[in-house]
C-alpha cells in the first residue's frame, strides 16, 4: 500500500551552481521509507548524504524530481509550510548538538513544544518524559555548558523526540562523541524507535552507527549504489 511509506523520493536530482559549472549532488535518487524504519544513508564525505537529509527534512528543495514527506510534496511547499512540516513532524539531531546556550536543559527540550503552543502542564509532563527517555531527568536545571558531549547529544535527542515526530533525521550524530557515549545514544535511539515507532534516518560514515542500522542505503557521488536491509549487529564487543 502506497500510504505505508512516509517518505518517497522520485527521480530526485539536486544541482548546485559552482561558478559556471554545476555540481550534481544527487542523481535521480528513488527511495521509499516506511514508518518505524531505523535506516541510514552511508557514504564518504561529498556523496550527497546531508543533501538528501536536508531535502527530506524540507530544509532544501530538489532541483528536479519529487519528494513526498507525510503526503506533502516538499518542492511545492512555501517557506512557512516547510517550517510547519518541520515543526510538527520532523526532529533533527545534529553533529554539534546545537543547544541554546542561555537556556537550561529543560528549556531547550521545551522549545519545540513552545513553538507548537502546547499548554504548560502538558509541556512539563512531555519534557520530563523525554528527559527520562534519555536518562537526564535529574539534569533539567543544568545549562549546556555544564554538560559533557554525550549528555549534550542526549539533550538534543530529547529535544528531537519531545514533540513525538514521525521522523527523526540525524546528521552524523556520533561524530563528536567517544565510543561509549556513541553507543549510549545509539541504544537510546533504538529504544525510542522500538517503543515509540519513530522513523530514524541517519546520515553517517561511522561504523558504530552502521552496525545499529536495519537498512543501509549507500550513496556514492550522489547516486544510490546499494540499499540493503540487514540484521543490526549492535554494540561491538
Amino acid at each position, binding site marked *: 500500500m502506497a500510504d505505508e511509506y512516509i517518505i518517497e523520493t522520485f527521480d530526485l536530482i539536486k544541482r548546485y551552481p559552482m561558478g559556471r559549472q554545476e555540481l550534481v549532488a544527487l542523481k535521480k535518487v528513488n527511495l521509499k521509507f516506511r514508518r518505524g524504519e531505523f535506516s541510514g544513508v552511508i557514504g564518504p564525505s561529498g556523496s550527497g548524504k*546531508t543533501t538528501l*537529509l*536536508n531535502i527530506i*527534512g524540507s*530544509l*532544501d*528543495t530538489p532541483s528536479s524530481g519529487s519528494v513526498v514527506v507525510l503526503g506533502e510534496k516538499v518542492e511545492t511547499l512555501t*517557506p*512557512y509550510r*516547510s*517550517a*510547519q*512540516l*518541520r*515543526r*510538527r513532524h*520532523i526532529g*533533527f539531531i*545534529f*553533529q*554539534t548538538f*546545537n543547544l*541554546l*546556550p*542561555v*537556556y537550561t536543559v529543560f*528549556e531547550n527540550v*521545551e*522549545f*519545540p513544544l*513552545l*513553538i507548537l*503552543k502546547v499548554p504548560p502542564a502538558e509541556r512539563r509532563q512531555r519534557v520530563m518524559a523525554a528527559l527520562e527517555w534519555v536518562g537526564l531527568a535529574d539534569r533539567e536545571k543544568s545549562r549546556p555548558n555544564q554538560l559533557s558531549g554525550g549528555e549534550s547529544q542526549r539533550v538534543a535527542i530529547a*529535544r528531537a523526540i519531545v514533540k513525538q515526530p514521525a521522523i527523526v533525521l540525524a*546528521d*552524523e550524530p556520533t*561524530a563528536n562523541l567517544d565510543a561509549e557515549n556513541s553507543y549510549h545514544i545509539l541504544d537510546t535511539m533504538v529504544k525510542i524507535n522500538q517503543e515509540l515507532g519513530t522513523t530514524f534516518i541517519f546520515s553517517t560514515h561511522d561504523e558504530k552507527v552502521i552496525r545499529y542500522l536495519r537498512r543501509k542505503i549507500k550513496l556514492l557521488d550522489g547516486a544510490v549504489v546499494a540499499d540493503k536491509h540487514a540484521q543490526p549487529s549492535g554494540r561491538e564487543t
Partner: protein
Amino acid sequence: MIKFIFRGVLRDRTRTLFPFLTVAIGVGLAVFLDAYLRGTTDSMFNTTARLVCGHLMVTTSAGAHAGEYATPELALLDVTPRQQELENSYPEVVWTPRIRFGGIIDIPDSTGMTRAQVPVSGMAVDLSPGGIEHKLLRLDRILVRGKTPRNTKQILLSEQLSQRLGLNPGDRLTLITMTADGGMAIADFTLAGTIRFGITALDRSVLLDSIADLRQTLGLPDGATEILGFFKNGVYNDRRAINISRHYNARHTHPDEFSPLLRPLREASGMGQLIDIVANATGLILTIFIIAMAVVLWNAGLINSLRRYNEIGIRLALGESSRDIYLSLLAEAFFIGLLGSTAGTLLGLGAGFYMQRVGLNISGMMRNATVLIDDVLRARIAPVTFFIGFIPGLFATLLGNAISGLAVFRRQTAQLTKEFSE
C-alpha cells in the same frame, strides 16, 4: 513564548547590555536636553516678558514703531477703560500698565549741592503691596536693602548703582526727566530700598517707581507707555498670543498713531525668529537623536544577529518560521527599549530635577552682556519631558532591530546542516 524570550534576554547580558546602555544614555540625554532647553528658553522668554514686553503688549502705534526709544510722549491714554476691556475680552490673561522712561538722578551732598548725576533707566509700575507687579518683578526676592515703597515719592534703585553712588535707604535724590508733553520734570524722592534683578543689563541702572507717582510727575493722568498682558498659567503660548493680537487689532482700527496696538511677545520683543528656532529645535534634536540611536542600535542588532547566527539557525531548523523569529526579535527589542527608555527617562529626569532646583550660575559670563536672562539658568520639567525621550527611545530600538532583523528572512535553511557540522 514571551516568557521564554524574556528569560533569554535577561540571562544573556551580552545581548542586552549594550543596547540597554545605548538607549538609556540616549534617552537620558534627550530628556535632560529637553528640560534644559525648556528651562533656558522659558527663562529667556519669561524674563523678557516680565521685565520688557509681557506675553502680550498694548502700546500706541507710534510707541510700537519707536520700540525701545518710545518716550512718555507716545503713551496710551485712558488706560483704565482699556485695561477693563482687555480683562473682559481675554480672561486668561492678567493685565498691568507700566511707564518706561529715561532720566537722570541727581544726588545731593550734605549741603544740598550736586554730588553726582547718573543716567537711569526707569520703570513705573503698580507697587501696591499684593499687586500683580510684586509677583511679576519678584519684589520680595530682588529687594537687597531697605523695603518696598509704602508711601508716595519713594523709589527703588539698583543695588549696584546705589553701591557705586554710596546711597543707602532713606537717602534723598532728585529725578530729572521729560514730561508727556516734552517739558522738563523734576521731582524729589526718597530711596526706599535697593534691588538686584540678577540680570546684569538691568542691574547697572534700573530705577523702579510707583506708577501713580510718576503719572503725577510726568503730567500723564491715567496714562501708560504700555499695558502688559501675562497668561495666568505663566507659560507663553505663542499661538494663542497671535490669535489674541489679531482679534484685538481687528476691533481697533488705526486711524492715528495714538490708537492702541496689541502685539504678542514674538513681535514686541523681536524674538519671533528665536521662538521659531526653539519650537523647532526640540523636534530637530529628537529627530537627530532617533536617527543616531537607530543607526547605533541597527549596528548592535547586526552584531547581535551575527552572534546569534547559530541560535537563529537552530530555531529555523526546529520549525519556527522566519516571521515568528523576526517578531520575537522585535519583542526582545521592545522589552530592551522599554527598560532602557525607562532607565534613561529616570536618569534624564533626575538630572533635570537637579538642574531645576540648583541651576547653573552664569553671572560670571554675563558681566558685560546686555541680554535679558537670569543669572542662574535652570531646567524645567514639563509633562512632555516625561515621555519626550521615552517614545523615541522605544521607537529607535524597534527601528534598529527591525532593520537588522530582516537578515532572518535571507537565511538559507539549506545551509543549516552544513553550518551545524562546522
